[in-house]
């Protein structure tokens, strides 16, 4: 594990750290006293355990971590962490987090959201947070269904999905959250799976270390309303053949014997022994141009035949909150520091005054 020493550019730069001499924080300290109330077998448990487990590794003061959520099953998340938190309203968490992250440089800000919360009712706030590149980490739990309202199709449900509100099948074309995030020019875009603890932890840590908006799509099983939605990739053998684990600087492989090659402006999967070496795509999450990452996100046509997992994009771009603060600080510095009472008096007077004598 690399140790974050708070270099500029790090997602947690400016956030107070625990004393290096102090005993390491524990998972228990990050666990609130509230009873967790998700359905038995819900994928959210695994994500919660993973987050509670790795937050101590960040070495940040617990009181400087804030989780903001919207509405939906996953949005109960903040209540189960002993940090600061707000369980807000449907879809608005990115907007609230933007205000908080901009007002407070010393906080590590996290958003917990779901496919309905982030992509349907809150779609506007999500895309604008990503284009602005506000320093926050967004965990998007995608279970392709509305759980809390008991089983209607969501904006990531497959065409034809039979749900309570689509008894003869959904006709809505679904969003691919990774494609959407790349289209909004998010600077960090990743995808992981609730049941793969090691991978989940690795991607979330990288997301936290990224300065700017990190969007992590977490495939998450809803055992009640959409059980088995990701079974094809969760199954040990099937999964192996379908997953493409993205490793920066390495050729992208699908399973053991297939590779991803260029195909016009897009990509396709071919048997490794039929591929021309020069056509095999080498993953580069740091490429300034998001086109390759986007093409990669299109590999899965919804059938989960080939599913890239890992970090699609991880690039540096000045963050919105840093720049907003820099403008305020710049103006204050060039004016000679914080405004005094005299400065305020001058402002109230303005340019054009007249005096009435008593």
């Amino acid at each position, binding site marked *: 594990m690399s140790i974050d020493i708070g270099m500029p550019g790090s997602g947690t730069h400016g956030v107070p750290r625990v004393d290096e001499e102090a005993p390491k924080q524990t998972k228990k300290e990050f666990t609130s006293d509230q009873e967790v109330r998700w359905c038995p077998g819900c994928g959210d448990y695994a994500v919660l355990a993973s987050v509670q487990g790795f937050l101590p590794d960040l070495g940040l003061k617990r009181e400087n971590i804030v989780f903001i959520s919207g509405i939906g099953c996953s949005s109960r998340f903040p209540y189960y962490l002993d940090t600061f938190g707000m369980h807000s309203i449907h879809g608005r968490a990115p907007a609230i987090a933007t205000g908080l992250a901009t*007002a407070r440089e010393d906080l590590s800000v996290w958003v917990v959201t779901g496919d309905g919360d982030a992509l349907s009712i809150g779609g506007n706030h999500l895309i604008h947070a990503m284009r602005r590149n506000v320093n926050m980490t967004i965990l998007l739990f995608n279970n392709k269904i509305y759980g809390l309202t008991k089983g209607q199709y969501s904006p990531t449900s497959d065409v034809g999905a039979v749900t309570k509100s689509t008894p003869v099948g959904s006709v809505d074309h679904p969003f691919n959250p990774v494609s959407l995030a790349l289209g909004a020019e998010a600077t960090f875009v990743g995808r992981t799976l609730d049941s793969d603890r090691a991978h989940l932890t690795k991607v979330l840590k990288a997301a936290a270390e990224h300065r700017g908006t990190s969007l992590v799509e977490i495939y998450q099983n809803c055992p009640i309303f959409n059980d088995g939605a990701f079974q094809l990739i969760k199954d040990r053998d099937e999964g192996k053949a379908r997953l493409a684990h993205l490793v920066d600087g390495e050729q992208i492989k699908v399973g053991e014997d297939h590779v991803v090659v260029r195909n016009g402006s897009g990509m396709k999967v071919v048997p490794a022994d039929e591929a021309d070496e020069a056509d095999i795509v080498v993953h580069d999450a740091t490429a300034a141009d998001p086109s390759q990452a986007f093409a990669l996100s299109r590999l899965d046509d919804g059938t989960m035949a080939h599913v890239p997992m890992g970090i699609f994009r991880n690039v540096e771009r000045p963050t919105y909150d840093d720049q907003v603060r820099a403008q305020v600080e710049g103006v204050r510095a060039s004016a000679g520091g914080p405004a005094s009472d005299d400065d305020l008096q001058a402002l109230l007077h303005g340019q054009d005054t007249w005096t009435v004598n008593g």
Partner: protein
Amino acid sequence: MSSKPTRRLDRVIIRFAGDSGDGMQLTGDRFTSETAALGNDLSTLPNFPAEIRAPQGTLPGVSSFQLHFADHEISTPGDAPDVLVAMNPAALKATLQDVPRGAVLIINTDEFSKRNLAKAGYDVNPLDDGSLESWHVHALPLTSMTVEALADFGLTRKEKERAKNMLALGLLSWLYSRPLDGTESFLKAKFAKVPEIREANLTALRAGHAYGETTEDFAVRFEVAAAPMRAGVYRTMTGSQAMALGLVASAHRSGLPLVLGSYPITPASDILHTLSALKRYNITTLQAEDEIGAVGMALGASFGGALGVTTTSGPGLALKAETIGLAVSTELPMVIIDVQRGGPSTGLPTKTEQSDLLQAMFGRNGESPVAVIAPQSPTDCFDSAVEAIRIATTYRTPVIVLSDGYLANGSEPWNVPNVEDLPGLDVEFATETNGTDPKGKDVFHPFLRDNETLARPWAIPGTAGLEHRIGGIEKADVTGHISYDPDNHDKMVRLRQAKIDGIANTIEPLEVDDPTGNARVLVLGWGSTFGPISAAVRLTRAAGTSIAVAHLRHLNPFPSNLEEVLRSYNRVVVPEMNLGQLAMLLRAKFLIDVKSHTAVRGLPFSSADLAQVLHEHVLHNEEGTA
């Protein structure tokens, strides 16, 4: 000094009207500054179309600016202009109905072409058909006079013509004995980078002044003496400026940063513009993706310990409703400024109305009380902003400030306060745990309330030991844990209401103005109707009729003596620019049959009309009729 005789007037109402590209707002602003410098009391009313450039020369494209100035205290921009400056036929057609016969019309004849007359809907030229005989008409070719004055300039004809508003301003400045120095410095600064344009405008301005001095068309000039005003330093200020400065002053006094989340909307955007330029005062402005994002950003900033503020108008307030409800539930401070405009829906974006009162009071799901206050004049927006931040931070509650288009754009003199005289604002964050859990461990209870205010502690992220979660789900009293317990919900709903009701303990009782002490009829207003109501009451009293008047700043909660005040009069008249929203609240709360008087024309009440209404109410009261 002028060679012409000067006649003294006690007050004058001038309206500048022209095409929206003619610079009438700028002309009005400059005349206002000149007038302020002479120490007159004044009040202004800009009136412009929602379209940035409506088709040139048409009635919808008319933009006007009315200014009332006097040697005594005045409270409105006036009902009927004494002087109309009409820059084209459309301006004449659109405004003549407001100008009483006998008043002065200064008309730019150059624009009275066949084509322009047709655009304005004139079949015959009103300058020729005798229809203006009852007015005192000065028909002047202002455009060609400007072009002629600028003959030596290397500018295009079009560029020269654009200075015609300055020629008109120069002429009016001469006519009412206004100094030009202020406008000259203004033009020098404004056009510092384009010397040719700067000189052209200065030349046009002086040419207008000189024309007044030499022409035989104007035999006398007028002057209006300074109004007696409290000693002090004065400036003119619009409601938007005053609102922004009030927020800045409060932030400064509290030592907290202010974060404005805002989405552009007429007529509220000027506050965003003003605050955006005041970063020096620890002001952060975030232009959000939409109205909901804007209020979300403000709430997020408040959660972080900043003064979260959002500015909007009626349609935006509707969009922000759910987030304001979240602020009610999480009990975080926030200030929402609604610069009301004509509604419903898009309504009349540039016109004024008071029709969001009930939306502010009740426009959220659930029992969701918030504090509501309303400024009464443009400069009172300053004090209202200060009061809103006091309530929000003291009671940890959203506060809605109901300004409106008339207040936002209107201007008047402001006695600039001394910073040290502004009310202090000490905001304390929680720093320590305040309870113990069943095991005896020290814990933080985010909903343990202050006994006096019922406010909960404001514990901001970054405070060790106070980690806690808040949200929109009902929470248990004291601990703040999620709770669906029926009795707890009943208690929390009542606590939140009692907290807002308790604000009445810290607001001034309602004061009644009743000089004779024998009035039986009270006129009660709120918000921007203060000016017209005050003027109407003065007219009513001048006619020998006793009438009492009071004005509400706090709409929720009401001042604690309000019921007693209402019950001490036989009849209470409530004029509003809506269909009786305050009247409905008063009737519901006190079972008092107040008399509602309403107009929703997108314009302030005419004080003369209102005086007539008040007079009739006094008569009916005496006769015992409805």
